[in-house]
């Protein structure tokens, strides 16, 4: 287990809280940037006008119907993925855990494709249940395969089980899309992971799911700290390990499932952000979780803005940007000698 034993950059509650406030400010700046930046740049006054005195001009429409839902999607999906990653890393004590790498997103994605393609369900409140079901099945399968028998779930086994399951689910999805050209056309834009898929209505539908997930996740901080000491010690300290695992799994399914249903499968945010949070505040999950909630949407929104600006006037979908930045981080983590020995 290589979750850093070192203390983070900020040692005491005071600086950590102050830092968190600063991080929230940065997040607000990212939100503003996401509203302003793009193929067409707007000023803060345009945003205010579109929100307060909507007159139906082109600018108003772009902001209200495109930029606003896109930014809200980034905010919600980012917070959800960051928390899901932090929870998975805490529960599995695996620094490589990420809903993308461990197949959770792939499970949700396949279920959504099935719901859209086979059952013709097009509202988020309709297929979000499928997404969560798919996420649940994938989580359980990967965890079972990764943790059977002696040695328990090591990072290597879990990552491999995730890769194998993703490959399997991916080929089922390929088969479905190859048999039907119009599904392929819809699917290929969705599978890269993008913040532009959800409309304002869908975003509103997602809020309660994500909110419940966030509350559940944040409530688990203390228990995750005790789990980090090892299962036996945690039990001795009075933690009901199985209950914590189930609640954390529930939160992951809720968060990652809804995020995937909204924005498609986005990888590596859940991997990277908890590591950054851990570097800042140390191994205490009561701090890692709230920091992840704030940092992850910041990262996701900035990645999305970068994707809009780099190949202007075309766009790089946010899932591609996060993979381009996240996978090298993953490789750097893997190269750390201790990890390979786990």
């Amino acid at each position: 287990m290589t979750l850093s034993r070192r203390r983070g950059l900020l040692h005491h509650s005071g600086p950590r809280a102050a830092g968190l406030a600063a991080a929230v400010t940065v997040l607000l700046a990212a939100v503003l940037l996401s509203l302003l930046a793009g193929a067409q740049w707007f000023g803060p006054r345009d945003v205010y006008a579109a929100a307060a005195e909507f007159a139906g001009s082109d600018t108003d429409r772009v902001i209200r119907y495109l930029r606003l839902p896109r930014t809200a999607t980034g905010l919600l999906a980012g917070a959800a993925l960051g928390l899901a990653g932090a929870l998975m890393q805490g529960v599995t004590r695996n620094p490589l855990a990420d809903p993308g790498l461990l197949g959770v997103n792939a499970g949700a994605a396949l279920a959504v494709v099935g719901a859209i393609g086979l059952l013709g369900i097009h509202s988020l409140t309709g297929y979000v249940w499928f997404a969560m079901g798919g996420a649940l099945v994938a989580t359980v399968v990967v965890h079972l395969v990764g943790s059977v028998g002696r040695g328990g779930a090591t990072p290597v086994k879990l990552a491999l089980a995730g890769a194998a399951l993703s490959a399997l689910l991916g080929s089922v999805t390929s088969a479905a899309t190859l048999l039907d050209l119009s599904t392929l056309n819809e699917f290929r834009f969705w599978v890269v992971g993008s913040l532009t898929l959800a409309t304002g209505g869908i975003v509103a539908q997602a809020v309660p799911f994500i909110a419940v997930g966030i509350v559940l996740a944040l409530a688990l901080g203390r228990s995750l700290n005790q789990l980090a000491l090892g299962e036996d010690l945690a039990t001795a300290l009075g933690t009901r390990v199985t209950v914590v695992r189930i609640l954390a799994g529930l939160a992951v399914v809720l968060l990652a499932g809804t995020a995937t249903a909204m924005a498609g499968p986005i990888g590596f945010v859940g991997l990277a952000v908890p590591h950054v949070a851990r570097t800042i505040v140390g191994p205490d999950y009561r701090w890692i979780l709230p920091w992840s909630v704030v940092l992850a949407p910041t990262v996701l929104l900035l990645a999305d803005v970068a994707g809009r600006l780099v190949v202007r006037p075309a766009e790089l979908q946010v899932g591609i940007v996060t993979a381009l930045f996240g996978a090298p981080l993953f490789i750097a983590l893997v190269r750390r000698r201790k990890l390979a020995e786990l």
Partner: protein
Amino acid sequence: MSTRWAVRVGRVSTRVDPVATGIALLAWALTLGLAAFSLTLGDYEIPLAQVLETLAGRGSLIMTDVVVNNRLPRILVGIGVGVAFAVSGAIFQRLARNPLVSPDLIGINAGAALAAVLMITVLGSSTAWIPAGALAGSLLTATCIYLLAYRNGVAGQRLVLVGIGVTAIIGSLTAYLLTLADIYAAKNALLWLTGSLAGRSWPQATIIGVALLVLVPPAMAAARQLRVLELGDDLARALGVRIEGARAVLIAIGVGLAALATAAAGPIGFVALVAPQLARRLVPEGVPSLPVAGALGALLVVASDLIARQLFAPTALPVGIVTAFLGAPYLLFLLARANRVGRGG
């Protein structure tokens, strides 16, 4: 330990294991049987007798066109890439002493796929050039992965994990290219990405045939050293094997086989993983498994292609979907089993 027979032809002698030989022969017989059956199937069915007559050169013009120019090369490509993936997988697995270090899991196939999709969707290349691009892509990826995983040697697990990371980057770029292409190019690219024998013809059959002719004999020769390398570096050195040299040659052969097979038929998943594993289970320990693995690889691809064409007929699925369906659960099983014996992934 099983009985071995020593076979001597002039000055060349080799030991032959009756069990291994029997299994290899059985696999080849099954492969040829399925291949013959496969030749009779298609848009219109041709009785086997007529197929054989055509192959012997006594068929009508149309029959010759359908069987010899259309169906035969496709089957040959299937057999060839089956052998190539399986031998490549066997080399990697035995070098790393880890069943998971197969070319498709460590990202070599993904590199070939990205290059090919780039050529199909962006450059609009003619099919003739796609294999060359795929070859370049997989060699480049293999080099990158090797360098990224290198740290006082290349540990098997680090190689696998680095491969997963590299595959993620490559996969997302490939998905991005698919969003840029027009829908028909995207479908072609997706077909290619899944690994398909559809439309494969004599050029691809030639590629894979030449690849096997050039790379398999040295692989067989080097397999002798594989057995010594498996004893561990120190012992191998003491026995006089030049370790780094032997390992480099074997890696080059393994990458070359996987790359050329991918160039010919796309990244058909899990053959490189499953075939050598089956070979290891069927043949007693310590017997050179490359020929058996190759035979099982051919059987696996030909059988999967048959299933892929028949299951959703008249729509033919690409063969890679069937191999993934068979292979991925097997990989999960392998992982679970490795855990139970406590050997880790």
